[in-house]
């Protein structure tokens, strides 16, 4: 009696349709869309559909065109979000370098404050001497 259960060999095979067009992983899809030519092709398509939208006179045609356009808009928006996220990492790396330089400027500020403090010390020493003199003139 033939079994309804597919043979082990068959069960390991993917459906024919998928074999013909292997599924791409998310990373592969993203990589495909990172190709500048692909991105430009989608931008051009978006613009071309935009012109078609305004040329169409029938509201149903307009809706159909805009529906496709909306999908392309979403794809291109996602790609831009990815780009900006990638830049965020670069900004983050740059932040510490700028902070290091600002720290170096902070050190210079401290050195300048020390110069001012030294002059203040001179003033306070003179003040202290004159105070001693005025309080105990008999010492001299």
């Amino acid at each position, binding site marked *: 009696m033939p079994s309804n259960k597919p043979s082990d060999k068959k069960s390991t095979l993917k459906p024919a349709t998928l074999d013909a067009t292997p599924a791409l992983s998310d990373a592969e899809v993203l990589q495909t869309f990172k190709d500048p030519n692909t991105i430009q092709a989608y*931008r051009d398509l*978006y613009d071309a559909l*935009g012109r078609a*939208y305004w040329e169409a006179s029938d*509201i149903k045609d*307009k*809706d159909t065109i*805009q529906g496709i*356009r*909306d999908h392309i*808009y*979403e794809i*291109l*928006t*996602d790609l*831009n*979000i990815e*780009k*900006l*996220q990638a*830049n*965020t990492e*670069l*900004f*983050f790396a*740059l*932040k510490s*370098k*700028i*902070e290091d*330089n*600002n720290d*170096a*400027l*902070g050190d*210079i*500020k401290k*050195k*300048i*404050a020390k*110069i*001012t403090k030294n*002059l*203040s010390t*001179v*003033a*306070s020493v*003179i*003040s202290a*001497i*004159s*105070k001693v*003199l*005025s309080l105990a*003139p*008999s010492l*001299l």
Partner: protein
Amino acid sequence: MFLNLDKSSAHEFPCTMRHRQSLPALLGVSLFLLAGCSLSPLARNTASFSSAASLVVDNTQNAYRTAVRLNEEAQASLLVARFDSAQPMDPHSIRPLIDDKGLKTRTEVLNGLQAYAQTIADLSNGVSSPKLDEAAAACGANLKSLGDALATSTSIGINVSATEANAASTAFKALGDFLVNRQVRSSVPKVIHEMAPHIEALANLLSSDITTLRDQSGRDYEQLLAQQDSFIRHAGSSLSATERRAEIERLPRILARKQATDDMLGELQTSVRKLAETHHALAVSATSKDSLSLQARIADLRASAEGLATFYQSLSASSDK
């Protein structure tokens, strides 16, 4: 400190008296000239750079806010358009163009740039001078007190007049300025030079961001335009004649905003590039005396940044929604 000769003996030393009166002022003027002249170009250039950099930073932060808000508007418009369709949009699927972390990081970097520009300007211009002035004034006043104390408690006969005390204060101030300026001149140009590649990297990153924002904002406006058009057509007679007229009138306003935003982002990209070039020129001029080309660059940058600031105000005022 100057010796105060007795009146009885003063006539015997007329030359000494004249010399004594002019010496404090001369000393003060000489030290001021020594301290001030050679620093002036660095101080002037860093102050101008700081002022222009501050405008670019403000404009860039405004650009991020504008672009993120615009994208939210476009996404909301898409949500409305798909609300009654077979595949309505899940509001949870809406992602911000730049997330909180991205905005925070960019803000921190821009604040770091602003702090850097402000600090080199402060250092070069001697912002710490109030403390220095205070210390110098105290020196003169305390010298006078010391002279008075010596005069009353000893027979030395030393007295410091108010004029001489002021001259001493001035000399101390000039000495302090000189020391501070020497510190600034020996340290600040080095920091500016070391910062140059980071400013270049920052300008490239900002430019990359702005290119993306220009690309995105153009489509965001196109989406708003098409959704608005679709809304009017689908609404049909449910809108009164007046309402319909008002909604249709929004269409050209959206297009005007699109053009204005693109112009603004284009200008900002130019400003960012000029900022990097100006900083490079500043780094070069910090170690040389030729600052003519730098002055021209700074003036150019400032004019560009001021134009943008005005533009942002007008853009906010004419915001369609």
